[in-house]
């Protein structure tokens, strides 16, 4: 059994195609594992029957030597992707019980490639959060425990916390998430897995419940950089149904994956060395720089002067868009409705009870920054700053091929921490939001453990549409770091077998 659970997606593909294993066995193993790790609360909906049916069909195709790139492989899907006939909630009470009659473009691409839906993973409500504690369906627990306080439950990061926890706990071979300001990369870093956000426009947003439209991007969450590349290749497509979808074709991510990085120029932005950066994060970052140097890359220290404004800019633009995108949840057509005598009261009570605290906080923030009298001081200024950040990166990419930074300032925190201090929580995104605001591809790769024995990731940011360089540097870090650490939870299962 642990044999199945420790397979990478790439290995599973090979073995399925060789008919060495069957999709039914593989799928069953993961469904059992989901059950065994149910206490993590990584899934909101488990599509047990649908998955087993899909596995049988995949096996039939595989038996005939047919099947797509992901044939017979079960994937966990963040519950922000609309799935036809399967409850889709955005982890919000306001959408509790909502069953779409349509399938998102990204998941359609997965199923067309032969993949199977294992279930819908938990997330921060409407993808707003860095801890996966704001879900209407309860917090997600990380499979990791720190060495100094092993009895304390930790967050998996967020907002794609369910997907991260599932991959880390081996209750999914791979998962997909969405990233608005770091919602794939930060939980990947906390959970010791690979998470990648492609260039804005690579993956269609059609059928993904919107948080902040100019930032939202789908991406893979996997155990290896190769797996992330395979999955992203399938997820990405030009979609005429999304007016912001990129027409440029995605290059083959696997072709250059293992090539030498000799002569590539890596930028290290000095502004990311913030005062509050813990020594151990700084050390791992330096370690990453040294690995790349020893692989033949040239290291250039660069300045990106507007970095310090990125977080504030993000926390104006994202809530502004969210306040608008979430206006449709009004109790009129679908989702929760609290009946009242008049429509204004119906709106008020539906939205008051349907949305959680963090969502309401961001709707208020967004409404405020778009209000007349404040628009110029906040939203307009933030847009200007977004342009300056764009220039920062443009100038940097005249000199360098990719940029290397930490993914998060520190390792995972306990469930409940930062709860009463939204600002501190928002600081989680300080290294991930700049690439989000500019729409650049970036990956988080696990490279080491903190003193407390918790994973720490490094982030590689690439040029617009240059996912190739991003995965290549990511793969190099992965190879150098040889990150083999496993959560106690996973080790236990290994022993049981």
């Amino acid at each position, binding site marked *: 059994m642990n044999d199945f659970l420790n397979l990478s997606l790439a290995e599973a593909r090979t073995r399925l195609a060789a008919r060495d294993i069957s999709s039914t066995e593989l799928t069953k193993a993961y469904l059992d594992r989901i059950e065994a790790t149910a206490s993590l609360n990584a899934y909101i909906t488990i599509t047990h029957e649908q998955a087993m049916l899909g596995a049988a069909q995949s096996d039939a195709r595989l038996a005939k030597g047919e099947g797509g790139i992901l044939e017979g492989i079960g994937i966990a899907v963040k519950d922000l*992707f*609309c799935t036809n006939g399967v409850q*889709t909630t*955005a982890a919000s009470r306001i*959408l509790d019980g*909502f069953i*779409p*009659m*349509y399938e*998102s473009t990204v998941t359609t691409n997965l199923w067309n490639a032969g993949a199977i839906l294992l279930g819908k993973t938990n997330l921060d409500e409407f993808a707003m959060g860095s801890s996966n504690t704001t879900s209407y369906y309860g917090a997600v627990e990380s499979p990791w425990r720190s060495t100094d306080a092993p009895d304390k439950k930790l967050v998996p990061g967020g907002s794609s916390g369910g997907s991260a926890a599932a991959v880390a706990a081996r209750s999914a071979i791979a998962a997909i998430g969405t990233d608005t300001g770091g919602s794939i990369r930060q939980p990947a870093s906390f959970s010791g897995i690979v998470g990648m956000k492609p260039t804005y426009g690579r993956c269609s*947003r*059609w*059928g*993904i*419940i*919107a948080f*902040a*439209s*100019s930032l939202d991007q789908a991406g893979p969450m996997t155990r290896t950089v190769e797996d992330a590349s395979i999955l992203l290749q399938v997820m990405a497509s030009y979609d*005429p*149904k*999304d*007016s*912001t979808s990129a027409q440029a074709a995605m290059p083959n991510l696997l072709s250059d994956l293992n090539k030498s990085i000799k002569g590539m120029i890596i930028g290290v932005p000095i502004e990311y060395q913030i005062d509050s950066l813990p020594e151990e994060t700084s050390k791992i970052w330096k370690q990453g720089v040294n690995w790349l140097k020893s692989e033949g890359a040239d290291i250039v220290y660069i300045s990106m002067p507007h970095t310090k404004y990125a977080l504030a800019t993000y926390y104006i633009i994202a809530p*502004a*868009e969210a*306040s*608008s995108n979430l*206006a*449709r949840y*009004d109790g*009129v*057509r*679908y989702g929760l409705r609290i009946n009242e005598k008049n*429509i*204004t009261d119906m*709106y008020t009570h539906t939205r008051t009870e349907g949305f959680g605290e963090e969502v309401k906080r961001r709707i208020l923030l967004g*409404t405020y920054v*778009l*209000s*007349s009298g404040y*628009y110029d001081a906040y*939203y307009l200024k933030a847009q200007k700053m977004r342009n300056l950040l764009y220039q920062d990166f443009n100038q940097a990419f005249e000199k360098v091929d990719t940029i290397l930074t930490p993914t998060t300032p520190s390792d995972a925190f306990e469930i409940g921490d930062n709860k009463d201090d939204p600002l501190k929580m928002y600081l989680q995104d300080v290294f991930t939001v700049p690439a989000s605001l500019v729409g650049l591809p970036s990956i988080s790769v696990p490279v080491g453990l903190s003193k407390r024995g918790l994973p720490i990731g490094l982030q590689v940011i690439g040029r617009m549409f240059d996912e190739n360089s991003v995965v290549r540097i990511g793969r190099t870090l992965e190879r150098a770091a040889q990150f083999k650490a496993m959560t106690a939870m996973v080790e236990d299962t290994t022993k049981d077998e």
Partner: protein
Amino acid sequence: MNESYYIKGKTGLWEVAIGLELHARIISKAKLFSGSASTFGGDANTQVSLLDAAMPGMLPVINRKCVEQALRTSLALRAKINLHSVFERKHYFYADLPHGYQITQYKDPIANDGELLLDLPNGKIKSVKIERLQLEQDAGKLLHEQNPYTTYLDLNRAGIALMEIVSKPDLSSPEEAKLYVNKLRLIMRYIGTCDGNMQEGSLRVDVNVSVNKPGKPLGTYCEIKNINSVRFIYQAIEQEANRQINILENGCQIYKETCLFDPMKNKIQSMRSKEEAHDYRYFKDPDLPPLVLEQLLIDELNNELPELPDAKKARLMSEFNLSSYDVNILVEDCTVADWYEQLAKQSNPKIAANWMISELFGALNKAGKNLSDSPISPKALSELLNMIENGYISGRIAKTVFAVMFKTGKSAISIVKEKNLSQTLDHSIIENIIDNILIAHASNVKKYKEGKHKLFSFFVGEAIKKSQGRANPNVVNQLLRDKLDS
């Protein structure tokens, strides 16, 4: 300028300044951002896409056909087209607005600085400036009448493409406002961008009204929303101007307000004051990149634009030597003008205009028919008119023939032959008739010969009458002169 419109108040004369915002439903198969049909009058909620219902995760995609319609309209209004325009979200909560915002244009509309020319009753031409033309979505409809306790929602209209066309406050009387709406509607009908049907809500009008003393700057305006007939526009402006004058003359101030006009009571009612004004929180729609247009497309559309009413009017006047009055009637509808031109090419243009306007329109009106249902084609009518022109039948007989043509759809020639109505050209018969008249009215003949020459027309009339209109008046004249003056 004593032709100008003034309202007499207690303190003297007041001028009125009016600006109009027209919401014109674009003629197109699909909605502005979704593929669902945009026809009027379907069963409730049968033309609703996932986007129109604002389902989670759905995204808008611009319908280029609607953009082209807006461009045609902008070109026809001689507006400056912006090659780069932006869609923004305008937020407010209402059940007929599924997204909680309307996608519209705000800072960067598709066109600015247009112009519309009005033919004033005094024969002068007035230029009214158009500030902007923007593309936007329509909202759905609430149905209150079906159940006393519940309101239902019909989203068929939600997302249909509208053009908002905003004039400067250049209009100075209710009459000018009426002319403006009619002219704009006419132009849009010519180019096929809006059917202008106000009853069906294809054209809805918001009116901005302010008053000022002559020579003084414009006053604070109030907006009267959603007026759906030209008559009500007229009434609403009069009511609102008088309301404001009354307030000002009592020493009070006008505050910017949004009002509704109640046609039943002929009264203006306040909808919301400035303090209650919505904060729409406009911002660029992040789902839609800016609308970028190629000059080539605009040039193409401009070249394909049909002849517009003003140009057509000028051409018809010069080409066919018609009066301004007649031409105004003919260009009122593109199909009327086309019909006329076909007729005028095959017959005397002036007679053609007279017959079309008085006889054909009269008969159509009486029968409750449109020109498109006319049982008489331009060619058929031209045959009739040419029979008059050639002296084959008289004008009076022609009217009889016309009535039969209209009723039966038969050709003029076959009717004239069938009923033996052609003017009798046989001199001997006419001579015989005249001889009989001269004998019967011997005393008048005597008087005529004594110098009472006015009696000549009496003899002509008698002869025509006796011939039952079938005698050619020219022949009658000639024969009478021969007999009386020799």
